[in-house]
């Protein structure tokens, strides 16, 4: 009864009702005065918003810089941020936005370095000769030259071939002229324009191959052309800070190896050379041997090549006189007994080499016997690997005897050598004791 007049009133006076409906509703229920940010924070936020127009960063105090780094958009142009914003949260955010896996410990714990190295790598890996302009790379150089120390390039794209070209290829497979032409057309990114400008570059890992080629597979995609080799060689010569060079799986033959080594002679800073998974033969090995004594190489890796006894002899000859080399890896080559013996004899005079890998090298008893002499006598050698060689029981015994005199070797791999179980366990025991003593 009491409601009905009210309802009637409500229907009669809609204006009044409307007025009653209008209430002040707090727009933000969580709003409190505590949450109101400081003026300084607001200022910093406005800095962040207008960073592109008016970058203010160096004038700020460290804590303010941190705040700005937290807030800056990662899509800002690099030419603005590269040399302005120091290593910190901003670059971390940039990295994590672009890549899923970010292990900063591999980059000297510098997010900025990580970002620029990976950015550069991406640019080079996606560089397509003749279609991508060189400018895109060169523009980046002034921005990242201070931060890039290592370039780990996992692919180098060949130029896009037009459909006509394919036909030509098919037609003129036999003609050498056509081949030459094709070689030219298959040239990859020219490092000559880049390496001399990266003043802080210390490591260069190159692979002349294409990832995820799919059904477009061609052998040529996994090769380094002569022109590539020339340009790379001269680029390497111009890069005076390089310490480590790795050229894997790039189809380097003796000829290319000669060319590269010729340019690497007397390099001021090169310490490590890695030509794993190539096709270097005796000539190339000879060239590398020549390089050994004309540089400060400490590590030489020729894993999975085609070096035979002649090349091994050349290397052994160089090794006998070399005072710098510490690690030599000739795994998966065809050194044979002659080469192995030569190397073992060279080690009798060498006092610097500490790591030797002669795994899978077709080495047999005589080499092991000479090696046993070396092991018994040499105290610098720390690890030796002669696995996958047919050494036989006698070789095992000789080695066993030699190990009983040795105190320096902490690693010795003698798997799959056909040795007797006893000698293997004895060798392991000896290595074990050496290791314990070393610790």
């Amino acid at each position: 009864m009491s409601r009905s007049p009210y309802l009637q009133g409500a229907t009669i006076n809609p204006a009044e009702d409307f007025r009653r409906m209008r209430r002040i509703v707090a727009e933000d229920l969580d709003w409190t005065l505590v949450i109101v940010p400081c003026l300084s924070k607001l200022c910093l936020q406005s800095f962040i918003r207008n960073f592109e127009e008016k970058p203010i960063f160096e004038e700020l105090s460290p804590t303010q810089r941190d705040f700005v780094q937290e807030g800056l958009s990662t899509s800002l142009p690099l030419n603005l941020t590269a040399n302005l914003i120091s290593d910190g949260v901003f670059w971390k955010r940039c990295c994590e936005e672009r890549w899923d896996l970010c292990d900063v410990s591999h980059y000297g714990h510098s997010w900025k370095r990580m970002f620029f190295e990976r950015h550069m790598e991406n640019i080079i890996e996606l560089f397509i000769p003749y279609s991508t302009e060189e400018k895109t790379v060169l523009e980046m150089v002034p921005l990242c030259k201070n931060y890039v120390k290592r370039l780990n390039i996992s692919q180098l794209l060949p130029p896009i071939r037009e459909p006509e070209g394919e036909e030509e290829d098919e037609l003129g497979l036999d003609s050498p002229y056509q081949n030459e032409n094709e070689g030219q057309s298959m040239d990859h990114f020219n490092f000559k324009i880049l390496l001399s400008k990266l003043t802080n570059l210390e490591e260069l890992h190159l692979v002349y191959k294409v990832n995820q080629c799919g059904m477009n597979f061609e052998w040529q995609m996994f090769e380094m052309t002569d022109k590539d080799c020339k340009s790379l060689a001269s680029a390497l010569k111009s890069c005076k800070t390089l310490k480590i060079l790795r050229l894997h799986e790039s189809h380097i033959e003796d000829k290319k190896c000669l060319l590269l080594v010729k340019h690497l002679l007397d390099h001021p800073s090169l310490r490590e050379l890695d030509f794993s998974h190539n096709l270097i033969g005796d000539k190339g090995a000879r060239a590398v041997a020549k390089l050994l004594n004309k540089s400060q190489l400490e590590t030489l890796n020729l894993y999975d090549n085609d070096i035979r006894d002649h090349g091994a002899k050349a290397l052994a000859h160089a090794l006998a006189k070399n005072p710098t080399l510490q690690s030599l890896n000739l795994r998966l080559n065809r050194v044979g007994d002659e080469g192995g013996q030569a190397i073992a004899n060279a080690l009798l005079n060498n006092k610097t080499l500490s790591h030797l890998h002669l795994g899978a090298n077709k080495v047999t008893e005589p080499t092991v016997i000479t090696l046993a002499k070396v092991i018994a006598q040499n105290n610098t050698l720390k690890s030796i690997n002669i696995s996958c060689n047919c050494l036989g029981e006698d070789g095992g015994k000789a080695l066993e005897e030699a190990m009983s005199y040795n105190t320096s070797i902490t690693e010795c791999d003698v798997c799959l050598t056909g040795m007797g179980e006893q000698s293997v366990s004895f060798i392991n025991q000896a290595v074990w004791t050496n290791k314990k003593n070393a610790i």
Partner: protein
Amino acid sequence: MEEFGKDPEEAPGPENQQERSSLQSGEADEEVHEDVNEEPHNQQPEDKKVEESEKMVLSQRILTLQRELPEQIRNIQTAADAKESMRRTEQEKACRLRLELLENDVKSSQEKFGEIIGEWSTANQKITPQELQELLNNQQKLSSALLDDKKRVINELQQELKVGDDRYVKDLRKHAEELGLMMERVEDQIKTLKMAYREELAHIQRINQQESEVLLTTDKAEWEQRLKALWDKELDRLMQRQEKVEEYNEKVEDVVLETRDQFNDKQLGHNEKLMAMVRERKQLEAASMSTQRILTVIPKPDGPDNLIQRKLRLVRKEMLNLKAQYSSQQKCITQMKRQLTDRRNRIVQQHGHTQKKIQHFAVADVKKFEQMWLMIEDEVKQLVERVLVLDSIIYKQHLGLAWERPHMAFMGRSGLIQPQKQTQSPTHQAVTQVIRTQDLQGSQRMTDASVGPMLKTDAESVTTEVHKAESEGGAEVEERKLSNEALKTVMELLCDELGFLFEEKFLSQLAPLEEEEQAVMKLSSLFSAFGISKREVPRLAQVLLKHKNQKRLQTEDVCVETGNSSDKAEDAGASCMSHVTSEHMDLNHLLPALKSFLEQHMRSREVPASQNLSFQCEAVRDTSEDQAYWESMSNVISEDKVKVWEAAESKIKQYHAELTEISELITETLSLEQQNAELRVLLQQYLQSIVFTDLESS
């Protein structure tokens, strides 16, 4: 096909290795277990060594794990290497075989080709077509055979290629499998390593806990031991201390007792000594007393000189003391005197000032009074005149009666009512006059006093003259002389009569002086003693003289006064005697007169003399007469007249009221008249207008 056969041989390689590695790890575990088993044996003798060995075992285990686990991976790698090397050798072999085959093929095909070519040369020699046909057929056969050979070779190679492809695919698969295996192993390794590390961590924690517990327990034990030792030590020390305290307490008590005993003994000794000494002293005293007594009893043999001398000394001493006291007291007295005199002078000065003031005020009051009197009298007289005028008006105009001016004696008078005594006692007036003159001559008299001796000779005559003058009733010149002479006589009288007051010393001191000087000195000393100043001296004389006069008047006028009975008797007795004798005989009355004067004088000191005089004047005035005078003034209009006046007033008031009514009526009638006049004018106007309208209408 050989390759197929070889591959399975190689395949179990990793597995074998795995087994081997597992064996190795098992061995390591066994070793560990052995070590663990060995532990309990060693535990009993040396705990620390066991812990160390445990640690060593653990670290060794970790090391072995670290060594063994990657070996498995390495084994796979090496196996892959071995396979690769094997493959290479096989490839090389295959290549060589292929090359050989190709070479053989090339050789055979070249031979065959040569045959065919050779056949072609023979073909020229053949002429017959059949032969040619045959040759051709033969050639064809040969070439087809050659082609077949080639094709066979090609087929073989193609087959090889296929096989190689298959093998490659297989290799790839195997690689993939190996990779998977490797990854698995790596994961397993990671797991095992984690486990191992966790175990190690737990172990280390346990060991650490144990160690810390052991350390704690040992430390606690040590702590408790040490605490116990400390407490024991403390207890021992406390016990020792208590014992010592007890000892010391005993010692202290002993010492106290000893000292008390000693003290008591000493006190007793001292007391005894004291008693002895007292006894001795008493004895000595007794002896001295006896000796004294002996001495007193027998002074002479002892020597009187001594005694006298002693006494003399004592007396002198006393004298000196007394002198000192005297001098000090004198000093005090002089000081007091000075102070007192100062105070007195001050008071006297103040007194003079106040007297002057009072005099001044009295004169002013008198003046004012007179002025007031006169003024009020004038006013009253005016009022009386007005009343009289009104009265006369009322009588003449209102009542129509004849009016007589009532007799008013006071109207003629003005000023203060003078006392009637003025006429009654002319002698008194004269006396006052004398007093006034004497006041004027105060200074003169002082000179006279100093030149007293010169006038002294005339004293007798003066007194007579005074008498004459008084009897005659006042000649001023004579009076002055008289006063001077009388003064002299009075002074002399005083000197003589009051001689008993002077001390002998004073008199003896005055003795060498002449009589006149003596008198002067005496008088001065007397006055100073009485406290009478030199100015008051004449008054004294006058009083004395008056005293005499009064007696004489009493006798002469026979008026009854309350004088002294002795005076009356004397007067009565000596009334007939001559004036001179009577004067001289008055000496007996001088003393009482002087006395009275002094009393008066003492009183008059408080009240100044002049005021005294004015008081006398006021006192003389008779206020009753004043009242009568003023009453006579008020009684100018008698009670009957007042009644008449009141009646007249009421009548006049009535008349006045009527008059006012009339005046009001007059104004009313005036206004009515005016209204009447106006109405008349209006009526006239109206009438005129009606006439005009009538005329017009008509």
